[in-house]
């Protein structure tokens, strides 16, 4: 046996997954409250004790961790035009596993600076202008950022013509120069920047967030949790040498405060006659819906889809839905626990959360008539041909109706313009191992992939 311990320091729970990389099995999972306020090792040791009750005494050969504790990796971005470099900066940050707490476009104002100061980002991503294009905006924004206190690391990934000058303006700040996230119009190039963001997270943020005490017992990986999940999803979709993947997929994590959506898919138009508009999106794309969550953001679901739909889906009256929602908003740790009404409500809320979050993530198609006849305009990713959906999150794994809820990620005739998967098999991550498998995949990709294919419950096509 060669045991590896994988740790996810979450904002609420520290979750452990122990695997044996020789037999390619999960030895056990356990969780305990994260204790970032005192000593992060307390929560870790508690969880370890729980784990070892299940597995017996295990000597771990290697230990790896990811973290979203202490607010995760909090980033603010600024670009030039909102739909172009502004969007590119957002996509880059989300894909690097960040929680984006501020998105700015055009020239930063004094008011913006006050907000940024309050937001206290861990990293700022400064972009704007294609290579050889506009330099005025990024230089202005660099000047605005130069005097901000307290300082934070700034990644500059804009017009290369302005890169060195930005560095000079920002002397005294921790500055990292990366290639332009949009070197040419309509070309997205974010990998280098994401790598840099993760490196800063590893070197600097881990210490600042009180995780260094734990870092001593880790071997070498420390990444933001969403970045670990994205890595696991890429592996699951694409496979690796010696083990095939399951093909293009959409993954959904419905949490208490946010809902994360990942798509590993090309997403370009199916037909030659379809005109593509807007920025091409990354093959591995992550979005986060901050207003869609099962407890802290429960009201957001009602606001987004309308209370009538939640009432209809749950079979409860609108008044009762609102009553329960108001209660759960305050009592965020309450779970249905056999209560029929609550189960009905959580079923409806989770279904609507998935529908809304995947709708926002997926692209759209619009039919228009021109002098040349009918034509289609696509924006964002076309996920209609994606064949697999992976779901996780408390509300989905603690119910028997998982597949029914997951089906809300699919294409719906009621929203024909939304390019969601038409037909897909559902995989359920009941043991919460996605982040752990992302971590494991750095050194043991084949093992991580085989464990995922074994441990994720396959439900087939819900239709």
């Amino acid at each position, binding site marked *: 046996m060669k045991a590896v311990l994988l740790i996810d320091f979450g904002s609420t729970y520290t979750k452990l997954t122990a695997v044996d990389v020789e037999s390619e099995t999960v030895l056990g999972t356990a969780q305990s409250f994260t204790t970032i306020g005192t000593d992060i090792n307390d929560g870790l040791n508690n969880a370890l004790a729980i784990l070892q009750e299940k597995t017996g005494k295990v000597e771990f050969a290697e230990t790896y961790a990811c973290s979203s504790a202490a607010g995760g990796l909090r980033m603010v971005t600024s670009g*030039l*035009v909102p*739909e*172009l*470099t502004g969007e590119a900066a957002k996509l880059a940050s989300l894909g690097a596993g960040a929680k984006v707490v501020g998105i700015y476009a055009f020239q930063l104002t004094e008011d913006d600076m006050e907000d940024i100061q309050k937001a206290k980002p861990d990293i700022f991503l400064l972009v*704007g*202008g*294609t*290579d*050889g*294009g*506009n*330099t005025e905006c990024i230089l202005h924004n660099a000047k605005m950022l130069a005097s901000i206190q307290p300082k934070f690391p700034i990644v500059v990934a804009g017009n*290369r*013509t302005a890169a060195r000058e930005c560095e000079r303006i920002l002397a005294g700040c921790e500055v990292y120069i990366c290639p332009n996230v*949009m070197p*040419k*119009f309509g070309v997205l190039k974010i990998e280098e920047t994401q790598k840099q963001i993760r490196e800063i997270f590893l070197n600097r943020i881990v210490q600042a967030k009180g995780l260094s005490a734990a870092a001593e017992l880790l071997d070498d990986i420390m990444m933001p949790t969403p970045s670990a999940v994205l890595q696991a999803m890429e592996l699951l979709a694409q496979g690796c040498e010696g083990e095939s993947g399951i093909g293009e997929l959409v993954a959904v994590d419905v949490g208490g405060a946010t809902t994360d959506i990942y798509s590993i898919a090309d997403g370009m138009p199916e037909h030659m006659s379809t*005109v593509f*508009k807007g920025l091409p999106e990354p093959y591995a794309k992550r979005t986060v819906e901050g207003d869609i969550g099962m407890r802290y953001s429960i009201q957001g679901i009602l606001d987004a889809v309308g209370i009538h739909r939640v009432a209809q889906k749950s079979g409860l009256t609108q008044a009762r839905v609102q009553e329960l929602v108001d209660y759960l908003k305050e009592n965020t740790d309450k779970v249905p626990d056999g209560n029929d009404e609550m189960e009905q409500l959580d079923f409806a809320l989770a279904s609507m959360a998935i529908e809304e979050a995947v709708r926002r993530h997926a692209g759209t198609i619009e039919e*228009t*008539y*021109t*002098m*040349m006849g009918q*034509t289609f*305009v696509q924006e964002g990713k076309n996920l209609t041909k994606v064949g697999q959906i992976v779901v996780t999150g408390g509300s989905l794994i603690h119910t028997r109706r998982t597949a029914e809820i997951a089906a809300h990620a699919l294409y719906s005739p009621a929203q024909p313009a939304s390019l969601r998967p038409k037909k897909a098999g559902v995989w359920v991550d009941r043991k919460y191992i996605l982040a752990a498998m992302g971590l494991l995949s750095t050194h043991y990709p084949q093992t991580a992939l085989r464990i995922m294919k074994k441990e994720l419950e396959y439900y087939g096509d819900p239709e």
Partner: protein
Amino acid sequence: MENREKKVLVIGVIGADVHAVGNKILYHAFTEAGFEVVNLGVMVSQEEYIAAAIESNADAIVISSLYGQGELDCRGMREKCDEAGLKGIPLVVGGNIVIGKQKFEEVERRFKDMGYDRAFPPGTAPETTIEALRELLHMDGETA
């Protein structure tokens, strides 16, 4: 570096117009003539030209329209450019920009009133447009 020496053009076919061939010809002709060309393709909205021109710090916007509805599509472009901080950016338009047989002098006058620097009738050779762009961008004697 290599591209800043060149003048940057943003080009595309405006409105619900899917005529792609002329657009490709112009792209090659302009590139050949030494311009850096940001080609937005077909079915381009006014906002898209403007967004691309801002990011790429464009020197001029060249709008094509071949389906006869160009006059409607082109209206208000100058005002939007002003609003977006692209004050004074040269706007050039060409193609079958109006419906029916109309005197081109009339048409040209209407487009100039709308704030376009140049308007070209159907069948204009790319060389003519390139010449006009050189003049508009004060590129006398340069090879763009």
